[in-house]
């Protein structure tokens, strides 16, 4: 057997999957280490995807074609990498259960985690049962129903943007990029399910910088009557019948505002996953907010400052699914370039 080059891919989310497939195509032997017992990462949290409401499961199935049964790809589940180090030109990954993996190059595709909304206690998540996160909304939507804990259809629902993003107080100054459009999507989904109910979106800015986003935003207002209110929610409380009372300021009308809704959905932001932070710190490639830092954001975005360690997907910064898949491929190309040089 010829001496094949080997690459470790850490994380079997969309970025890892797409990178592994491309590398396998180049006849490189890939080992994918996934900490969960299944692949797909955050894509598993979605029911339908923006901007075209495509079923997330379908997208996932086409993504994993040639991934699971690829003879060049070995996927190992339940392997949490606790240490990633370069040693004698080799990349060594230690996992929490004591196993060691070795390769010629490594790709960090450890992705993101969502913001823990309990940190913003004033929003009542974890305290008032009808305050949920956007991730929980997706889960409910997958099951076909959006219901309050009492089991009734919400007559009024509010979505709050920028929870854990663009927020000095929690230390995240950046924009998570996907939550605005996700709110538009979810509000439309809600209104399609329950046309009689009302939906409100509280926002600071509406950031619709993607293909078809603006159109969707417009449609949500014209066709579905979603109401947009500029202003952050400052505090929430609960009424006796478990409705959520919102205090906010309508910054366009410059008045304080009070509203009672049956359900409040927090559009939680994107943060670096724990593994992203730990592994990039170990290799001195950690950037702001615990994300991994690429060598050059314009020309070497898949390279890190560590030779042989590559970055793919949202371990670098918040990215959309579309961007993540493309970035996985792009990382694979960089790895191939590198392996050729080190022959």
């Amino acid at each position, binding site marked *: 057997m010829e001496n094949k080059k080997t690459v470790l891919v850490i994380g079997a989310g969309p970025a890892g999957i797409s990178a592994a497939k491309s590398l396998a195509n180049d006849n490189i032997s890939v080992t994918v280490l996934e900490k969960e017992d299944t692949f797909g990462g955050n894509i598993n949290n979605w029911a339908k995807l923006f901007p075209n409401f495509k079923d997330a499961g379908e997208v996932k199935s086409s993504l994993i074609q040639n991934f699971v049964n690829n003879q060049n790809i070995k996927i190992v589940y339940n392997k949490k990498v606790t240490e990633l180090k370069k040693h004698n030109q080799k990349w060594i990954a230690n996992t929490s259960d004591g196993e060691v993996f070795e390769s010629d190059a490594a790709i960090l595709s450890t992705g993101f985690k969502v913001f823990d909304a309990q940190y913003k*206690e*004033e929003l*009542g998540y974890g305290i*008032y049962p009808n305050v949920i996160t956007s991730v929980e909304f997706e889960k409910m939507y997958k099951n076909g129903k959006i219901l309050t804990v009492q089991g009734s259809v919400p007559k009024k629902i509010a979505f709050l943007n920028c929870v854990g993003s663009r927020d000095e107080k929690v*230390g995240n100054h950046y924009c998570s990029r996907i939550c605005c459009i996700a709110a538009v999507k979810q509000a439309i989904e809600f209104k399609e399910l329950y046309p009689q109910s009302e939906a409100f979106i509280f926002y600071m800015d509406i950031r619709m910088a993607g293909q078809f986003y603006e159109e969707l935003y417009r449609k949500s207002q014209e066709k579905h009557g979603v109401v947009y209110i500029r202003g952050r929610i400052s*505090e929430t*409380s609960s009424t006796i019948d478990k409705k959520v009372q919102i205090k906010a300021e309508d910054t366009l009308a410059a008045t304080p505002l009070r509203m009672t809704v049956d359900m409040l959905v927090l559009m939680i932001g994107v943060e670096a996953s724990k593994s992203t932070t730990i592994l990039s710190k170990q290799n001195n490639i950690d950037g702001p907010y615990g994300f991994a830092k690429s060598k050059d954001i314009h020309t070497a975005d898949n390279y890190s400052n560590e030779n042989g360690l590559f970055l793919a997907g949202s371990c670098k910064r918040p990215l959309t699914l579309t961007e993540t898949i493309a970035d996985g491929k792009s990382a694979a190309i960089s790895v191939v370039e590198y392996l050729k040089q080190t022959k």
Partner: protein
Amino acid sequence: MNYNPFIIPFTTGAIILFAIIIYKFIAWYRKLDKKQRFYLRKNILTFKSIEAIKESFLEALIHRNIYKKNLLLGYMHMSLAFGWFLLIIFGKIEASLHAQTLFEEPWLAIFFRYFVRDEHKFFMSEIFPPLMDFLLLVILSGVLLAWLKRFSSSLLGMKKTTRHSKFDKIALASLWWIFPLRLLSESSTAALTGNGSFLTGTVGNLMAVLNLQYFEIYFWWAYSICLFAFFVSLPFSRYMHIPTEVVFIFLKKWGATAGEEYSGYTDFQLNACSRCGICIDVCQMNFAANIQNVQSVYFIRDTRYKHLKDETANNCLMCGRCVEACPVGLELTVIRQQLRNKKEIAGKHYYDYTKPQEADKKYDIVYFAGCMTHLTPSIIISMKKIFEEAGINYWFMDENKGTCCGRPMRQQGFIQQSKDLISINQKLINSSGAKTLVTSCPICYKSFKEEYVLDIEIKHHSEFINELIENNKIKIQNSQKSIVYHDPCELGRGSGIYEEPRNILAKVGNLKSSEFEKQNSLCCGGSLSNAIIELEDQIKIRNHALENLTACNPDILATACPLCKKTFVHGNKAKVMDIAEIIAENISLQNQSSKHKEKNKIKTKIEL
């Protein structure tokens, strides 16, 4: 007459000094506000004046409070102040005994050894030379320490030492030289006449190699000029604190306090600061965030010299740590507040839209959660549970439409707006007819206590819960969890509540102590009084505090302020809980009254 031209600098200097001091004191006295003058007149002839004399002695001369910080530093201040004081007193006695009148030439005491050169005996004359030598030696040891402090302040337990202005430098330089020059002058005279004792005599013998016949007079001239320089620069330098501190102590003892507005009493306080720099070391802005030039010593100095910058006035947490540490006992945060207060009364009323609902019936207790507590709803839920468990007939005053207590506005200097808010709340509280007002926020608590006119007992929830437990109104169980308690600034230093929270916590868990506790507790960094601090600096202060508080890895970091809770939660270091939450979690259910059990059963049914 005992006269020589070299006494002229000293005498002129002394006259100028007294003239300026008297002028200044009168000017400040006239600026005292009505209340301060009232107390002065009321208490001047009471034993409070005796107390003031005692305290002046202990503080201005002995420097008791500095001793508490560091022995050597205390000794340095005492040897200079008390030593010099005694030197003047005994010098005067010696001169008067010699001249056999109380009205000898005023400079005679100062230059006694020059003028009285013979062994002329008078009553007790033999005890003075050694006594005066001893005092001089004590003072010189203080001067030596002061020199050392300049080179290495850490020797005297100080991390930072104050930077000086021009007048300070002149005064300091002359102060450093006054006593060495006195030693040289007296020693040279002693060498020529033999009127010295163990110190001046010995030094005189060593100096005898010089042509003292010629040099002696120059030493005396130098000594006198140094005194002149010191006297003339004193009123404009930090040393103005020497006379001012004494007057300040008297005013304080008579009952004066700094009010809302800048007054003559503020001037006395500004000038009573000795710029010892102790407030720099205790300030978290300095040691946690490395921000200089905003500490109280700089604030006081810049205010006194009228070049106060906004940054210096505003970049302060108002945590009160410096107030606790200041050996002079200056009301540093109150003065800062005076300078922050906006002079022009803004015409716009911002709170017209607030139309609070009045109480619909009479209650025993009013509960005011406060704006900050509304941002930490689990505290509110816990308080509700506690009220219900104790079976209390309470009115949750700001449940739906709350109005801020007004203190954050006030701390930013918006007095008028703050008063608007206060009058709204005052009306509401009085409408309830309750006897007790309970609040969950130390900021509101302090505001109710100090800025409201209320005929009602005001309690922070930690006091209230403590009473409920003591009176068996609620039963709690011990969770055995380890707990560290963080004293919130406004509750601890601000309101003096240290024991009640600890009392409660010791009953529900295993209360551990931390390095910074009670009067010495740290600010969480989230203070609303500082609207200009950079977030990164705030985070540095928070993280430093968190590190100290969680050094023993407690299960729970407890606090009694929603703002501290929120700030610490974002630090992500420990499980942070308010006292109310901890109690609500540990209310023991077995002891619930049967009525409550019934009610709960029904509730669960509805939920199902």
